[in-house]
């Protein structure tokens, strides 16, 4: 309803106010007159009328173009395909690259997920006042700078979709961020909801299926990632019986579909989701298919040759071919001297090889990189255990 009104009024603010007024109106009328047969149509009609009033009021103040006519002519019942396109337009407006990432995530949560300003502020770890100001500024920029409310042309679609997916994934990872930051499960839920909306709106995009699958598969392990004391639990030590089987099944099915669709052009999200599926569907840590995982990392490296991907690949080699082979891979990576996980992974493999002195030194180097608090405590525990 909101998405359609934004399209017909051309203003996010007018549309939101109108929907809110319609809801207030419903609260007054329904208890007195009874709930109408079709509450959605009732709300849409009232919201549309409120929007027309608002635009007329605005038009009366200046010589602004009167758009109210379009609204009054619009039929009461909007076909599903139109609603779908309106929602999609809204996604692309909220995640427009001309808006900062912080503003994109804020707009997504309030406008697409329908969260209140107070809830959004809590989730984004800021105050309600600051959040309200940020929203006002973002909406002002959309209106004044003419950020369009439309689905990008095919030529621009891949790039714009990648930006949308990145914004949604950022929301998700912000939700699972541990260490000194609180874990925000609701943020993960909202990101998954957005992921579902995107898959529903663009069912042929394998990258969006990959994105949703990646979030589901990671989220399935939510409860087992930390113990009752809030300390990190490694993948190998997690209680697999506590993993969410429904989410894993859904995620794995999406991965299959996404890989079939994308063939050899699988993107970052498809590949990362496929790796997550390998882990999530292995019955035990020892049954993990490391050969598959290494092949997926190789494909991922061709797309995003980042330090973290190279590190993860080396760890997988260590699991498949033994600690010595893994260490060899790790030592061939350059430029990771300031990255605590590189030192920590070396330390683990050195300890497995019985090279206790060198392992201790590597643990020390990891701590010297000032890792996040949860990682630091984990490294200290591993260090104590290796002696």
């Amino acid at each position, binding site marked *: 309803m909101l998405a359609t009104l934004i399209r017909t009024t051309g203003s996010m603010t007018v549309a939101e106010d109108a929907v809110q007024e319609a809801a207030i109106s419903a609260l007054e009328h329904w208890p007195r007159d009874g709930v109408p047969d079709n509450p959605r149509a009732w709300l849409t009609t009232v919201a549309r009328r409120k929007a027309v009033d608002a635009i007329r009021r605005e038009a009366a103040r200046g010589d602004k173009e009167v758009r109210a006519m379009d609204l009054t002519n619009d039929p009461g019942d909007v076909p599903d395909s139109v609603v779908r396109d309106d929602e999609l337009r809204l996604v692309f407006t909220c995640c*427009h690259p*001309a808006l900062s990432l912080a503003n994109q995530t804020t707009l997504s949560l309030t406008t697409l997920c329908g969260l209140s300003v107070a809830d959004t502020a809590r989730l984004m770890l800021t105050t309600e006042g600051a959040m309200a100001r940020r929203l006002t500024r973002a909406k002002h920029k959309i209106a*004044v*700078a*003419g*950020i*369009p409310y439309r689905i*990008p042309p095919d030529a*621009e679609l891949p790039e714009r979709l990648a930006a949308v997916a990145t914004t949604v994934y950022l929301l998700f990872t912000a939700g699972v961020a541990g260490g000194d930051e609180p874990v925000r499960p609701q943020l993960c839920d909202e990101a998954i909801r957005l992921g579902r909306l995107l898959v529903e709106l663009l069912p042929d995009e394998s990258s969006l299926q990959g994105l949703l699958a990646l979030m589901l598969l990671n989220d399935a392990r939510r409860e087992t990632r930390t113990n009752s004391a809030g300390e990190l639990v490694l993948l190998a030590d997690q209680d697999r019986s506590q993993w969410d089987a429904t989410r894993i099944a859904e995620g794995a099915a999406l991965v299959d579909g996404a890989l079939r669709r994308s063939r050899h052009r699988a993107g970052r999200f498809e590949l990362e989701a496929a790796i997550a599926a390998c882990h999530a569907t292995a019955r035990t840590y020892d049954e993990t298919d490391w050969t598959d995982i290494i092949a997926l990392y190789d494909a991922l490296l061709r797309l995003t040759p980042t330090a973290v991907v190279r590190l993860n690949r080396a760890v997988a080699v260590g699991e498949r071919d033994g600690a010595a082979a893994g260490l060899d891979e790790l030592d061939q990576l350059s430029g990771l001297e300031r990255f605590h996980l590189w030192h920590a992974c070396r330390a683990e493999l050195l300890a497995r090889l019985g090279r206790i002195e060198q392992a201790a030194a590597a643990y020390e180097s990891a701590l010297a990189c000032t890792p996040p608090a949860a990682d630091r405590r984990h490294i200290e525990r591993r260090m104590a255990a290796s002696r």
Partner: protein
Amino acid sequence: MTQYAALIYSHDGDWTSPEEAETTKMYAEFSENQAASIRGGAALHPTSTATVVKVEGGRGGDVLTTDGPFVEAREVLSGFYLIEADDLDSAVAIAAQIPGAWDGGVELRPVIQF
């Protein structure tokens, strides 16, 4: 339709000098190609010709003139266009054709219609 100022930040060139002939030719091509969207604009002399004027102590106060641009930077305001476009996406597509976009950058600012 929205009007945008496309503020061009580029190297501090002298657009009248022969060394810049290649660049000014590219600007001429751009202006011709986008004539339908361009509502105005100007190329600016280098910042070595700039003068900053400030009035100290509020309106009617002492006029202070200094040599040079308002802000010293590697990339400077070297010209601008006033363009008209349907929306920001269309304006971005036009701005991406301005030679300054690959010699620094172009800042798009919506223009207030009083």
